């Protein structure tokens, strides 16, 4: 692998990790609240949060661009304060984060739904506040699903393309991730490099998923003893 290719790989992993870190807290919180919330509008809220899962990524990218473009309200406001997002690495993080968010939420929410809500209530009667009850009971009981969601989100972030290319462009050295580089290489007929980068992508996804499997399997074995 050339230095340039290595840089693309590192950059991609870094962007995916940042995106995952960015959605970790809000994603797990949203998952927990969705699992517990029973009030009106639950269905609509569920659906809205899952939309990026089914929308064409280009639609998500388009919305983000409309929101954050320099001559758009939010983007303009940020630009006046010297914060540039579109077509920078921040846009890569943002686009991949938005696309990965529902995967984390879905997986974590299912895990939280499987936790008996009465156990959380019991923790409260034993003196744990809502936050402590979450960290001492709900999260430890749901962590497998949460971890699976984190890895899924990370893997999705590694491979995000459609939203990223619209909001972040395909600027080598600035915003070019593996998926974008592969696209570009195929476009200009640089197939040999595309093959190498594709292989790396497959490898990364495999390692991420296999790691989760391994941790979960270990856990199950230990529980069965």
């Amino acid at each position, binding site marked *: 692998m050339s230095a340039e290719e290595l840089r693309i790989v590192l950059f991609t992993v870094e962007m995916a990790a940042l995106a995952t870190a960015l959605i970790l807290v809000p994603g797990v919180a949203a998952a927990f609240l969705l699992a517990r919330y029973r009030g009106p509008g639950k269905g609509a809220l569920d659906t809205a949060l899952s939309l990026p899962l089914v929308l064409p990524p280009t639609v998500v990218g388009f919305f983000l661009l409309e929101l954050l*473009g320099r001559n758009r309200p939010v983007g303009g406001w940020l630009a006046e304060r010297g914060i*540039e997002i*579109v077509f920078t690495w921040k846009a890569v993080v943002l686009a991949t984060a938005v696309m990965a968010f529902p995967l984390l939420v879905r997986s974590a929410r299912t895990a939280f739904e499987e936790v008996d809500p009465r156990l959380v209530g019991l923790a409260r009667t034993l003196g744990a506040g809502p936050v402590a009850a979450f960290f001492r009971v709900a999260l430890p009981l749901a962590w497998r699903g949460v971890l699976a969601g984190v890895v899924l989100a990370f893997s999705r972030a590694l491979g995000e393309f459609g939203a990223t290319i619209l909001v972040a*462009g395909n600027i*080598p050295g600035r915003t070019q991730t593996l998926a974008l580089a592969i696209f570009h290489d195929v476009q200009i*007929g640089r197939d040999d490099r595309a093959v190498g980068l594709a292989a790396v992508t497959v490898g990364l996804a495999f390692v991420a998923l296999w790691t989760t499997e391994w941790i979960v399997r270990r856990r199950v074995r230990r529980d069965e003893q």
Partner: protein
Amino acid sequence: MPTLWLATGLASTTLVAALAHPLPAAADRRPELLVFAAASLTDALGEIGAGFEARTGMRVLFSFAGSNALARQIQAGAPADVFVSANLDRMDELEKGGLVRPQDRVDLLSNRLAVVVAACSKLAMSRPQDLERAHRLALGDPEAVPAGIYARRWLEAVGLWGVLRERVVPTLDVRAALAAVESGAADVGIVYRTDAMTSRRVRVTLEVPPDEAPPIVYPAAVLASSKTSEAREFLDYLQSAEARAVFTRLGFEPLDETQAR
């Protein structure tokens, strides 16, 4: 519990490792210049950029794509310093939008269109009408990509567009059209003469005479939003004898100051 700690540890190690690796903006300590340029300039600007880097100690990053896509990104706020377009329309749009100041732009180059086929292809064309033998014709998107728009105007001028438009394979930029012919995805393509010269896997079967096609002009400009003072220096360097020698060698026709608007 140990497993939980292990998992947490693993996750945080990954995160810390990722964060510790310097962000791309800081990966190289040299000051950076971001140049958006038409895909057809990939080879020429790559070489000229290296020359500029050696001379100034700066780092020049290029984003090569269809001029239309790059202009769109600039309008949305892409932080480019210099833009080299393959047609005047896109640059005019930016100027109208206040993103380029008139005094910061120059007309840099001219180019010619060429009809290409795969190097091993038996297709031979001596006049435009021979294009009717093409099954699939790769063009930069004739709605948006400059090379495609030039090609369409030429085909319209010679009265072939009506026949050929159904066989067009539109691509995102001119280099993708070239790649489509290289890979055999299309049997014929219309690209710039300079693109054809970069590839050993295609051959030019018909050069489009300059008088049949609309004039091709590559304007270059420093963007108004650029905060890099060296952007102007780069624009000047593009017009230097050193750069003109590279352009000429690769088949471009540098425009004289007198020819500039």
